[in-house]
């Protein structure tokens, strides 16, 4: 066990199995993500993509298997809050910002640092924190809207705010769940650019259906099928794999 934990991989999944009422959402899944890597995970509906995210972020406990982050933390024993503070961020399919808070407060809540309730009771944002917020507001081009409640933002602005929140959280590993669902082609292209930009300083795992988006990312692809890994490689390699063709086109 110990020698496996001292892996160089940032995220290490080995033999992970999750079943819901007998249905195996994940079946002996193994996966390695190296530091600095961006990985795309594709697969048909019900392949276990979201369950895998749930296991990594502590929402779902696996029945068996190992999940190790950064070579030392056993994620199967930690709760969501602890895992988040270790440096794993998660972006959901639907943009979830705090609607009743202003744009700036949304970023402040996400900002890495204070999390305990008794410290926040008396803390005011420090100069460094304010400077970082200004910086992020400039990056996501929302300085003018910073005092506007998030509820009044357009769908696209909410996506940007959420990206800003991820920058504020500054995770080592970012899990992104179907970022381009419901987007236009132009928005999809912009999102691919933004993810590549984020990948310069963070490791990223993207779960996506949209093949043209995955192609635009141009990264290593893992294909999931019925809870296990079916194939791994570049998008061209995996799309040439007859088994992949069968699960995707056979339906």
């Amino acid at each position, binding site marked *: 066990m110990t020698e496996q934990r001292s892996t160089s991989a940032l995220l290490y999944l080995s033999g992970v199995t999750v079943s819901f009422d007998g249905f195996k959402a994940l079946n002996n899944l193994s996966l390695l993500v190296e530091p600095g890597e961006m990985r795309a995970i594709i697969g048909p509906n019900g392949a276990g993509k979201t369950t895998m995210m749930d296991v990594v*972020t502590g*929402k779902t406990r696996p029945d068996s298997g190992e999940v190790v982050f950064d070579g030392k933390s056993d994620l199967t024993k930690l*709760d*969501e*809050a*602890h895992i*988040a*503070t270790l440096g794993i*961020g*998660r972006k*959901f399919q639907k943009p*979830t910002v*705090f*609607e*009743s*808070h202003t744009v700036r*407060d949304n970023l*402040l*809540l*996400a900002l890495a640092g*204070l*999390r*305990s*309730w*008794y410290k*926040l*009771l*008396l*803390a*005011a*944002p420090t100069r460094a924190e304010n400077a970082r917020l200004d910086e992020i507001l400039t990056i996501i081009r929302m300085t003018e809207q910073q005092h506007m409640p998030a509820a009044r933002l357009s769908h696209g602005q909410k996506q940007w705010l959420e990206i800003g*929140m991820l920058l504020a*959280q500054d995770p080592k590993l970012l899990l992104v769940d179907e970022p381009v669902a419901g987007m236009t082609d132009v928005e999809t292209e912009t999102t691919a650019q933004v993810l590549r930009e984020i990948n310069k300083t963070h490791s990223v795992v993207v779960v996506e259906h949209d093949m043209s988006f995955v192609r635009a990312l141009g990264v290593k692809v893992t294909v999931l099928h019925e809870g296990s890994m079916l194939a791994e490689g570049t998008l061209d390699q995996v799309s040439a794999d007859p088994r992949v063709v069968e699960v995707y086109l056979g339906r």
Partner: protein
Amino acid sequence: MITRFLVQGMDRNLRLFILLVLAVGIALPLLNQLVPPGNPFHVPAWVMQLIGKYLCYALLALALDLVWGYCGILSLGHGAFFALGGYCMGMYLMRQIGSRGVYGNPLLPDFMVFLNYKQLPWFWHGFDQFWFAAIMIVLVPSVLAFALGWFAFRSRVTGVYLSIITQAMTFALMLAFFRNDMGLGGNNGLTDFKDILGFPVQSDATRGILCFVSALALALGLVASAAVVSSRFGKALTAVRDAESRMRFLGYRVEGYKLFVFVLSAAMAGIAGAIYVPQVGIINPSEFSPANSIEAVLWVAVGGRGTLIGPVIGAFIVNFGKTWLTGALPEVWLFALGALFIVVTLLLPKGVVGLWGQIKTRSRERRARAPA
């Protein structure tokens, strides 16, 4: 740091409102004591007592709003914390009666003599001292809230399930307090109080002071709540209300936030109950009845949840209505209560305070449109 923490939370409206509450608490007793009866400005003692009672209800509503309006925990058992605070005060007041009771026992309250108690039950010790009772008024509701919240929030019990648990809690306490062998007066509760801190409870002067204390407690409750909800803690708290799992994935231990605000709220409710009891002269198990807690929810809903002024206004509106209707048309009150629930849910989701805000924005928009 502490002063900034206390002051930053209050905007101008809230400061004016707190001053208004204090002004009422000072003016009523003065108008009662200094202006002779017969003068049109004289405030009769019963009015003062009634307002004092409403002020306590308002503090209970504020406490409930802190958990419901700001953290999304709909407690249907806040009346229990109010009643527990009331019982702690009642026990102190009982011990002050001394040998002036009907049976003249210097140590045992009347109901204990009547029930053949040979000695004072262990939990009655210390209640002859006001400072001890004052600590218990805060401690007993807080400990209960902590125990309940600890288990419920850790097990991630939320929404309607949590509401049902809190409702069950107050119902269970009511049944327990009805029993004579609880040693707390059974269904008669605690009453026949003589004096508080050496002042006769029944006198108008004492009632005036109690009315002022009620206003002061509400004002302090508003200051404390404003400080909490406008701090970074408060921002996190409303974020927990709006998107709990998102907060977890941002690394917040949501349980700690909920537990703190739940305990704070229970303590405030306990204080409200404690100030309420000497003004009405009795505390009995019916204060635990689930209907009381649900009424308190209605006060908050009518006034406007998620605002600090709302619950206070709501408590006053509904209780004025109740006092007036139960006097004028007693059989109508329960129907009016039911109708109010429906009207507020359908037409006033943000309560009276929200309605005021809507009217203001609408007239501003109309004015903005007019010159074009």
